[in-house]
Each structure stands twice: as C-alpha cells, then as structure tokens.
C-alpha cells in the first residue's frame, strides 16, 4: 500500500487490513449559491425561448453532482448541452408530428401509440444508459446495459401481475424493478448487486396497511357515533396520510441502500421519519411563503439531508476500479433516450 504522507498517523489506527472503513456521503452545495444559478438559468431560458434549457439542465446537474463527495472525491456530470438540445428538438418534432398525424390520419396516430407502447422499455434502457454514462466518480464513468425483454417485464408485466393479484405481488414488482436497474448498472467494469427479498418489501406495505387500519378505523367509527369529532377527524387523516407517505419514502430509501452493493463494498442509509418529515414540511412552507423562490434552496436542503444519511462501507481501497471499454452507442439511440426523458 502506498502511504499518504499527510494522514498516515490516522490511517495507522485502522490496522486490520483490508481496512473496512465507513465513508459518509456529503453534499457541499449551498442554497443561496444554487438559487443564483437557478434564477440565471430561468432568465436565460425565457430570453432564449427555451433553447438555453439544455445548458440550464447541464449546469443544474453539474452543481448537484460536483458537490456530492464520498471519500473526499466528488461526482461529475458529463453531458454535453448540444446533445440534450438535439434530444429536445427531436422530442418536440416527434410530438408535433404525432399531433398533426392524429388530426389528419387518426389511424396513423393509433399505430404510433401502439409503437410507442412497445418502444417505452427501449427508451427507458437508453435513458438510464445515458444518465449512467454521463455520471462519473474518481474519473470513472458509470454504465448500464439492460435487455429489452427484462425491461418489458419490469415496466409492464410485473406491475400488471401486481394489480391482478390485488397488490399481493406488487412488492415483487418493485423488487424486480430495482433488481433490474441495479444489477445491470456498473461502476467502470465493476457491477452493482441488489439483494433484497419479497419479504423486505412486503413488510413495508403491511406496516402501512396496519397503521392505516389501526389508526384510521377507530377514528372513522368514533366519528360516525360522535359527530362532534368530525371537526378534527379530517385533520387526523391528513396527518396520518402525510406520515405514511414519509414512512414509505424513508423505508424504501433505507431498504434500497441496505440491499445495494458494489463488489465487496456495502451501502447504508439511515433516514428517519421525523427528520425527513421536518425537511419536507420546512421546504413546503418556505416555498409557499416565498412564491416558489425557495424552490432551489429546498432542493439543496433535501439533497443535503439524504446525503447526510448515506454511508459507504468500503472494504479495502477504492483505488482499484477500472474504466470500462469505450462504448460506441449510436448518437441516435442516445437522443431517443433523451426524447423519452423529455416527453
């Protein structure tokens, strides 16, 4: 191992090798700073009648990626605004073409709608591949290589099965989707893995159902017999509804990271319902009070909170990842991925 001169004394304390160290994610962005970037983006987007929106997207994403640090290195967003602009123009053209076709030749519109239905899994694959390829960490790009068949299952078949079984298979649909997207993603040449069970997802659904029944039913019954309570019961329902939504967000995020791994490195997320609820409520309140001007700072606050709860349990060094072969995916596919992103 190469010793780093500055911090070697601290490193010596973690003697047992391969040293397993816990590295926190950290978001170093600032609400006010992002506000300035955001407002300039909007101004230029309006002045250029939307053309600048492609540059705005890149600047927004660059700000959030570049401020995200793990192990003192930041992520990077690599997309070229021109590529995004091309994608958006194609999307717009496709949309207008569809609109015109639906007026003059309704049959063509139906055919196009069916074609779109079957094209969606392909577009999703392209879109995820584009996003991953445009993300890098320690100058190594992420990758995604999905298959049409699996994407079709994840997008249509599993959710439909979930509905047909009245939700019993719905947790499985979610699990399958996460498995598909994670297992086909890679950091350089190293593949991610996802290990969760049907039970993990099922428990979250059961808990929600349980709370809804245990808290909701007595109030409903009580309100029925004591009409005076009807003044506050809607309020109780709103609070319960909000709490359950936050619970679902928190549990899914925590479960996702707990199930995620990259070779021998593990992840962990420790979001809590009160903290997440506080962030959402403060954001909501300040955004409404400021007529939306707080929106960028709200996004920063949310990102900061979520990142502060994420940990990477690195087993050994993070220096040994290598870059994947250069991919020569046609620009057309990339742009269609963008089209889907936009539409």
């Amino acid at each position, binding site marked *: 191992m*190469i010793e*780093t*001169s500055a911090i070697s004394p601290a490193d010596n304390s973690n003697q047992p090798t391969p040293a397993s160290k816990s590295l926190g994610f950290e978001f*170093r*962005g*600032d609400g006010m*700073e*992002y506000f*300035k*970037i*955001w*407002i*300039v983006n*909007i*101004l230029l*987007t*309006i*002045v250029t009648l*939307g053309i600048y*929106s492609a540059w*705005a*997207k890149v*600047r*927004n994403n*660059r*700000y959030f990626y*570049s*401020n995200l640090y793990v192990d003192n*290195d*930041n992520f*990077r967003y690599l997309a070229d605004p021109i590529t995004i602009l091309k994608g958006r123009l194609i999307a717009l053209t496709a949309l207008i073409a569809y609109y015109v076709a*639906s*007026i003059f030749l309704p049959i063509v519109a139906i055919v196009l709608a069916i074609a779109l239905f079957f094209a969606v899994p392909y577009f999703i694959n392209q879109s995820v591949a584009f996003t991953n390829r445009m993300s890098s*960490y*320690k*100058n*190594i790009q992420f990758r995604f290589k999905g298959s049409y068949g699996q994407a079709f299952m994840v997008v249509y078949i599993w959710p439909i099965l979930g509905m047909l079984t009245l939700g019993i298979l719905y947790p499985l649909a979610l699990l399958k989707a996460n498995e598909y997207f994670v297992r086909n993603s890679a950091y*350089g040449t190293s593949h991610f893995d996802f290990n969760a069970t049907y039970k993990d997802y099922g428990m979250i659904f059961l808990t929600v159902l349980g709370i809804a029944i245990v808290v909701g039913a007595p109030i409903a019954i009580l309100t029925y017999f004591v009409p005076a309570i009807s003044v506050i019961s809607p309020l109780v329902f709103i609070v319960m509804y909000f709490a359950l939504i936050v619970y679902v967000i928190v549990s899914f995020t925590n479960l996702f990271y707990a199930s995620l791994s990259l070779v021998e490195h593990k992840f962990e997320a420790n979001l809590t319902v009160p903290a997440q609820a506080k962030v*959402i409520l403060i*954001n*909501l309140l300040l*955004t*409404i009070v400021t007529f*939306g*001007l707080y*929106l960028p700072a*709200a*996004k920063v606050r*949310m990102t900061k909170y979520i990142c502060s709860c994420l940990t990477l349990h690195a087993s050994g060094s*993070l*220096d*040994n*990842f*290598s*870059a994947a072969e250069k991919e020569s995916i046609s620009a057309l596919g990339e742009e269609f991925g963008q089209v889907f992103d936009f539409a």
Partner: protein
Amino acid sequence: MFIAGIYLDGKTSKRHIARLEVNDDHKITHIHLTEQQQVLSFEQQHYTIESRLGNTPREILFEDAQLFVCDNHDEIDQLITWQENSSPNNITWLYRLENNIKLICLSTIVTAILLYGMITYGIPSAAKMMTHNVPYISSAQFVSSLDVLDKTVFEESKLPEQRQQEIRDLAAPYFSNYKSLKPTLVFRSGMKANALALPNGIIVFTDDFVNLAETNDELIAVLFHELGHLTHKHMTQRVIQDAMLTIMVVFITGDVETFDLVTALPTLLLDLTYSRKFETEADNYALALLNEHNIPLQSFVDVMTRLENYYLTGIEGNTNSAMNDFLSTHPKTADRIKLVEQFNTKN
C-alpha cells in the same frame, strides 16, 4: 507557475496528488505526480477547462479522459484568459452573472416580470394566434367530444320533442350568421343546470337549465354566451394554454420530484384564472349581441341570478366566498352583473 491538485488517469479510480506546471509562455507543460515522483508531459496536448460553477472544483480535461482537479479558482481563471482564441469576458460571464448580487436581484425581478408577462399576455396571445390561424385543428381535434360526454355524463334528454324544436327554431335565425362555425343545438340530461359549447360547434343545453330559464330571452342570452365561446375558440385555446403552462412549469422547476403539490397548485390556479377570463370574454360577446338584437340585457342578469341561486341552494352555508372565487372556473355572478352595468353605461 505550479497549481496543486489531484490527477486521475481515467483508467483506474486511483487519485494522485499532483502539481500542474504552466511555463512562462502560459502553456501547460507537465503534471508532476508528487508521491510517485513521476513527471507526465502534456506539451502539445489539447485540453479543455470546464467553466466555473459555484464553489465546485475546477476541472481540466486532457486527451484519453485524463483529468486534473483543483480548487485554485484564481489560477485556473488566469489560465483561461491565457488560453488561445478566447476573450476573457466570453468564458466567465455566466459565473459573473451568477455571483453579482445586484445582477441577481435584477435577474429575479426581471424573471418575475417576464413570467408575469408570459402568463398574462404571452401564453394567452400565443394560444389565441395558434387557435385562429390553424382552423383545422380547432374543429377536427375534438370531433368526438360529444360522444365521450354521452358515454360518461350525459343521458338522453327528457324534454318533449315539441319543446326542443321550439328552442331550435328560436336559435335558428341567430345561427344563420355563424355558418363557418356550424353551430347546432342539442339537448341532454344527466348534468345539473348547465350549457356548454364544444369546439366542433355543438352547443349543449341540459334539461335542468332549460327548465330553469323562465323566458326565451334568457335562453337566448345563454346561447349568445356559448356562441361567444365558439367564436373565440375558447376550448381549443385553453387546451393549448394548459400545454404551454405545463411546459413552462417543468422548465422552471426542473426535476424537483418531491414537489408535485408545489408545481401542480400554481398550474391549476392559473388554469382557473384563464377559464374565468374566457367566461368574461364570452359574457361581453353575449351582451354585445343582445344589444345588437334589441333584447333587454336584464334577461342576462336574470338567468345568471337564477343559475347562482340554483347552485347556492345545493351548498350548505356559502363558506368563504373569497376562496371560492379564487378556486372557481366562472367569475362571481355579482361581477358578471357588474359587467352588464358597465356595458350599459358604455352604450
């Protein structure tokens, strides 16, 4: 000049503590890897310096995905100004714009004014222009909308055929002036007292509404209001306006996923504002037409009052009228009656 930073070769994730060497001709010559005591030559290499963005690290990209990262903003900015064929103002003006407090305040105000202008004038007039210059869209797009309504809310009219024919005869002379809109009057039930104009020229009167109106003049007043909607192609315009509004909101909020409520609420409120504007426009149109045909404007006031009373009896205790006004598709009846008074004084 030496700039301290990190070098990443783009092949592995190993970071190297490094120093970037810039010679007296302002050219990047070498990168010194401090730990390995290795010197990489970068003479003649093409490189790009990423633009400055907030406090994020500065990046210089070399060939073969090699990357040099550092936090020395001043030195990198200096390097950019030295770079060939780039005027200094050209590269950093975005960063300057983003960091000048006065300009930011100005931008915020200008953006707010532009947005206000777009919402109140830009989008409505653009939509109006589109609706009136692409006639085919407005008539064909919604051909089947009556079919859809028939399948969902409407039922067969229970009015006697004689009464239906009576009202049709009443409307016929006025319709003859609107051949291009192909107006037809149909009767349905299944909805409360209401009258609506569909974009392909169909005007629907519901049974409850026909029974509510006490004079023929009142029916005519509402008929004129609906003709106003048709003439101005309000339905098409509204669809186009909503589409534009949605695109605008998406542009502004970007990908803020957790804020559905915050983005959906203004869109809805603005849509309702647009809707009320259309109603007022149709009211004005109806008043002008009533005046032209020497029908007393009072019939308009009467039918509006009747409709209001009809709907108010359905609601227990008229709560918070200001809020209702804000959340309504139609202007307040009092305002509509005021419109009649204004119209009277003008003529």
